[in-house]
């Protein structure tokens, strides 16, 4: 571990990209994540490691540059924010279909449309439920600190190459723009062209040698072949659920009530846990670190222990659906969240727990309403 620095989440992510030996970054400016490409450009990564950084003419071009680079076995990433990710979805679907490793970062802002540049978690469904066309999923990592913005770059590349699949880091304007302490691992060597050719000889397009030639495509006009391809993708996702699920339990051991929250909301909910415990309420927090795979089993088990669950998200209620599916009606599950770029405060979150779960459902284990609502 090297020196401790004070950095924005976006900058930490960019520095980590250089440190893990990424071969290329292709991007297009958009608030609140432009610091990523600004930082990369100012760091002269071409000189530091030989990493290629290019500002593309659009998000569409950028994701397709990622596709091109990934086709050749290179370690490549892009980043954007919500409207830009919508543009990238075509390319993301192709990456999934063609089984290419790549890292895509979404520093989420509020929507729909041009929306707001302020933080939001309204892209949960887009990230977790596919987003682009076709039967595919993304492995989704949700950092909740500047340190995780840095650490997850390496984790994301590891998963991307383990499964030959695109991986998303789902951050938001709060984590991207805030500064915290961060430390970095030492510089990792980039793979040489020779090593890449040797290592990914069975699939990467690096020029046809004695081997059978390699083709990268997502097209299979024969239905049986296409079904087999989709089946192969589904097998990967099952394996991800088995081998690479990540979550964090905070004060759950004696919890009678539970928050479920990821990313920036998890930080805020963690403070709400503290405020609750100061009031004598036994509240815990389950933080999914991966949004796909999702800690379904952990929630199912916690539902036997707690009296009610509040899903805290900076949106009108997206992840709450997954919480309800996991809990299978064992206990009341409600949603709380602000939108429009407004960030809920820890006090608001605790109040919502008291109103929607403790008071509403305190006397009975049957819950009357399933409506998620915004304060």
């Amino acid at each position, binding site marked *: 571990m090297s020196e401790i620095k004070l950095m924005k989440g976006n900058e930490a992510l960019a520095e980590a990209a250089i440190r893990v030996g990424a071969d290329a970054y292709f991007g297009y400016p958009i608030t609140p994540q432009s610091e990523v490409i600004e930082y990369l450009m100012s760091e002269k990564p071409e000189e530091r490691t030989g990493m290629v950084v290019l500002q593309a003419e659009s998000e569409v071009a950028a994701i397709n540059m990622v596709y091109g680079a990934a086709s050749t076995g290179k370690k490549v990433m892009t980043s954007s924010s919500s409207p830009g990710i919508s543009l990238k979805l075509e390319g993301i679907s192709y990456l999934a279909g063609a089984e290419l490793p790549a890292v895509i970062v979404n520093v989420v802002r509020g929507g729909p449309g041009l929306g707001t540049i302020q933080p939001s978690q309204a892209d949960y469904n887009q990230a977790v439920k596919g987003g682009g066309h076709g039967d595919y999923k993304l492995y989704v990592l949700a950092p909740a600190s500047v340190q995780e913005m840095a650490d997850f770059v390496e984790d994301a590349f590891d998963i991307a190459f383990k499964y030959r699949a695109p991986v998303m880091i789902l951050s938001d304007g709060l984590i991207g723009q*805030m500064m915290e302490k961060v430390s970095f691992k030492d510089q990792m060597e980039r793979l040489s062209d020779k090593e890449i050719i040797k290592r990914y000889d069975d699939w990467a397009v690096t020029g046809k040698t004695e081997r059978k030639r390699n083709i990268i495509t997502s097209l299979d006009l024969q239905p049986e072949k296409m079904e087999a391809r989709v089946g192969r993708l589904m097998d990967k996702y099952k394996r991800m659920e088995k081998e690479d699920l990540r979550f964090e339990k905070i004060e759950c051991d004696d919890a009678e009530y539970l928050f479920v929250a990821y990313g920036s909301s998890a930080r805020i909910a963690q403070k709400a846990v503290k405020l609750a415990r100061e009031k004598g309420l036994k509240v815990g927090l389950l933080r999914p670190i991966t949004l796909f795979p999702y800690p379904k089993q952990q929630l199912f088990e916690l539902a036997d222990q707690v009296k009610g669950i509040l899903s805290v998200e900076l949106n009108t209620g997206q992840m709450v659906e997954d919480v309800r599916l996991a809990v299978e009606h064992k206990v009341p599950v409600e949603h709380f969240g602000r939108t429009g770029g407004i960030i809920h405060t820890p006090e608001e979150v605790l109040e919502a727990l008291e109103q929607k779960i403790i008071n509403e459902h305190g006397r009975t284990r049957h819950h009357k309403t399933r409506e998620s609502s915004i304060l």
Partner: protein
Amino acid sequence: MTEEIIIAGFGGQGVLSMGKILAYSGIMQDEEVSWMPSYGPEMRGGTANVTVILSDERISSPYLKVYDTAIILNQQSMDKFEESVKPGGVLIYEPNGIHHHPTRTDIDIYQIEANRIATEMGNKKIFNMVVLGAYLKIKPIVKLENVIEGLKKSLPERYHHLIPLNEEAIAKGTQSIVSYKVEKQVLS
């Protein structure tokens, strides 16, 4: 120890950089820190604010509703954040341009005439360091030598010759902060 601070004022007053120096100073003495700015187009000319937290424990929410200390540098911020100081907390403000002075009696209120002092020192840009000095007099949560280290970290090297001036500004702020007494409101 956990200190939760909001610094709010106009863009260009050095609000964000003051927060950054404070955060860096915290790092220099092994504190956990977070620095959460308002961001976007409002940053130039409009209002800017930053939430800074220093703590010896893992920091949970970087975004807060109430603060131990509010440092307020314009009227809009006074209107917005006076109510956000925890009872028993501290409000420090720069009176220049403030028409509606704070009225709470359950917090400690201080004034620092940082504009005048910075002007007298011949460099308006050290305004925020005067304010920082004033703050550190009331809440000496970081040592001066760590602030200087923090300055070195957050200033580009080409400005390092200005560090003695900044140090002087901090000292002036420390000497010049005065307590402000809220007049009991007469109800009519």
